[in-house]
């Protein structure tokens, strides 16, 4: 637990979660969880099924309202208290982007359109809230070109350029996962939250995912927050791991620290059987 100090030293804090508690009726899904995620670092939240990982995510991104706790995003424009913001405002103003465990694309829109919709707020302003766009203003045309350029950058990076005009729903599964990440990145976030991005990917694809996430961290210099089951992803690229069990934080530190933490081995990894953790 003392490793928390190491984390704070390794990068400036981007997200501070304090005493987060979330109850569903009598069930306490998250019980007094506090942790920090640093800027330009990959922070992973792991834990057995039902440990409350996705609930933490949903509290962060405004899909749930936490019962207790403070969620602070240290944005370049100032701090945002996420627990007080509506979901879409968290994405718009606090610049937190997320992906979903079960992919949520706009299946009947094309790949390119998915990436353009992600830039809605920028384009909306450029089109003077539709009026300028209706009249064909030059400002909107330039903004749309820029939006297409950003989309093209991510399409190239994801290797989806040839499929740009496909309906997103027709893409293979792995491509859909990557497109969802590209769509989230098109919102130009300061914190990217990924809910089990490796779920359903094969070995090669999940290696590519590792590479992509490291690329995002190093080239785009933003913080990443990851919920993941796949240990090859978690241990391979995380700078910092938070372990939850039954809604409580049981460990927090570097991958090496967590791997050797007896509390984690006992509660999460089982009876010293490495590799068993990936089920479910």
């Amino acid at each position, binding site marked *: 637990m003392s490793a928390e100090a190491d984390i704070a030293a390794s990068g400036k804090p981007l997200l501070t979660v304090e005493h987060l508690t979330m109850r569903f009726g009598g069930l306490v899904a998250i019980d007094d969880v506090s942790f920090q995620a640093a800027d330009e670092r990959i922070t992973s939240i792991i834990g057995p099924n039902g440990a409350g990982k996705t609930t933490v995510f949903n509290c962060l991104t405004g899909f749930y309202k936490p019962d207790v706790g403070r969620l602070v995003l240290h944005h370049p424009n100032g701090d945002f208290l996420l627990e007080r913001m509506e979901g879409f405002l968290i994405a718009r103003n606090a610049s937190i982007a997320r992906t979903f465990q079960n992919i949520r694309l706009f299946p009947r829109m*094309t790949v390119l359109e998915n990436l353009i919709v992600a830039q*809605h707020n920028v384009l909306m302003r450029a089109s003077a809230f539709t009026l300028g766009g*209706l009249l064909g203003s030059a400002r909107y045309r330039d903004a749309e070109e820029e939006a297409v350029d950003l989309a093209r950058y991510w399409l190239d990076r994801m290797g989806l350029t040839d499929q740009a005009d496909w309906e997103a729903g027709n893409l293979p599964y792995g491509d859909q996962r990557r497109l969802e990440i590209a769509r989230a990145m098109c919102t130009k976030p300061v914190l990217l939250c990924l809910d089990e991005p490796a779920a359903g990917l094969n070995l090669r694809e999940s290696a590519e995912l590792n590479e992509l996430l490291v690329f995002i961290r190093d080239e785009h210099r933003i913080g990443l927050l990851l919920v993941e089951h796949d240990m090859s992803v978690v241990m391979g690229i995380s700078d910092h791991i938070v372990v939850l069990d039954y809604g409580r934080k049981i460990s927090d530190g570097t991958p090496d620290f967590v791997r050797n933490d007896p509390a984690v081995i006992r509660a999460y990894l089982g009876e010293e059987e490495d590799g068993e953790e990936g089920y479910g």
Partner: protein
Amino acid sequence: MAATPAIKPFDFPDMFKEAGAAAIVVFALAFAMVGFRTEPVPGGLGITLRFADVAMASVIAFAGRIALILLREGRPFPVLLTTLPFAVILGALLLADQALASENGSGFEPVLPFSSPVVNWMIVIVAAVFAGRAAWAVRHARSTVTAEEREATMDRIGARVQQVARYAGPLLIGFALVLPFLPIADRRLLDIAILVVTYIMLGWGLNIVVGLAGLLDLGYVAFYAVGAYSYALLAQYFDMGFWVCLPFAGIMAAFAGILLGFPVLGLRGDYLAIVTLGFGEMVRIILLNWYKFTKGPDGISGIPRPSFFGLPFTRYPAEGTVSFHGFFGLTYTPLDRIIFLYYLILALALATNVFTLRIRKLPVGRAWEALREDETACRALGINPRNTKLTAFSIGAMFAGFGGSFFATRQGFISPESFTFIESAVILAIVVLGGMGSQIGVVLAAILLIGMPEFFRELHQFRMLAFGAAMVLIMVWRPAGLLAHREPTLRLSATKRLAKAVP
């Protein structure tokens, strides 16, 4: 499904048993419902017995069932051989019968299966459909089409029609523009054309809400009513003219859309449909009961007719004014005003279309479509679902308001009776039938659903029946609508080609 093309051993008794069962069911149903018909006779109700029709219905059910079984079992040939001549001969007989009947009052009645020409025609159509399916099966050595194949084919057709529409659209508009001056254009045709174009406009307006934003609105006619009453009441109380009131009517309807939108934003799908249905009825009932303001069921009459930039369409203009025909030195015909109304609604409809086509390619239009696809994902991307839905609702309502004020000025009289739920249902049917989001589909569906019934007024009592049957068929065959095919709002390939052409 059937992997073996070889003809399976065939169970004839079984076939007759199944067909017999169908015939018995039909007989049991028809015996009471068709066999006895109450008719007003002097001094009360009399009963006409129509057992010939009952027998005929059973026979046709029997034969039709056999045809179905044969198709199912992969023996389309006999079906084709019997149904095709049957459809052709019966169709020819019916045509001849109509011609004869119009000449000397009686035709081939005794040979026809039913006394009602509508039912006879329906049988012809069903036989033709059977023949078509059998012909298809003979050609492809298969009797069934999988759902995916049908979807793919229909989507290709939809895409093709949209492609053609790009060139045919201007032609259609050109035709619409010269229509009043064609020799076929008489008062009746123009009236029907005005009606059809009105519904096309309403369909295009509702398409924004249902087709693009995916919000199922069953109370669209409420906004139509708001627009109509806005104009009628402004004209009555403040003596305002049509052109001043037109934007007001749109604004009032848009405002009503926001008013409805606010409380129901959280609802999705079926729930939204129910609430909008309720809203439609509320508006109608308020109009009906607020007697002091709206004159309730008496309606508002004497709504001013539109003028041509201040020139009225009257034979004898009031003292000190010049009428349209006087100004242009034409001889007066009452058709002038009809033609003007026709152009007016055509312009309004085209404006709706241009607006929709443009806004689809703007961020708000894309956000509507994204919202239809996945609201949760939209929220995660920072799109404000409330405002986005409200814009869709209010813009759709605004066009209904324009349409409503046109309706008021055309009729000269409005009452709540014109704004019943059935109108909402018809407009929604046009959108759904045409293919949600498809502009050309709305045009075809409006012609089909509004124009055809107007031309075949005689069929009036069967109109709703055919309507329902068409909707059921669409739901089974192609839930997305006939010509549903989504054209992307922008393509990378188009912009890339430009970039490549530079070096």
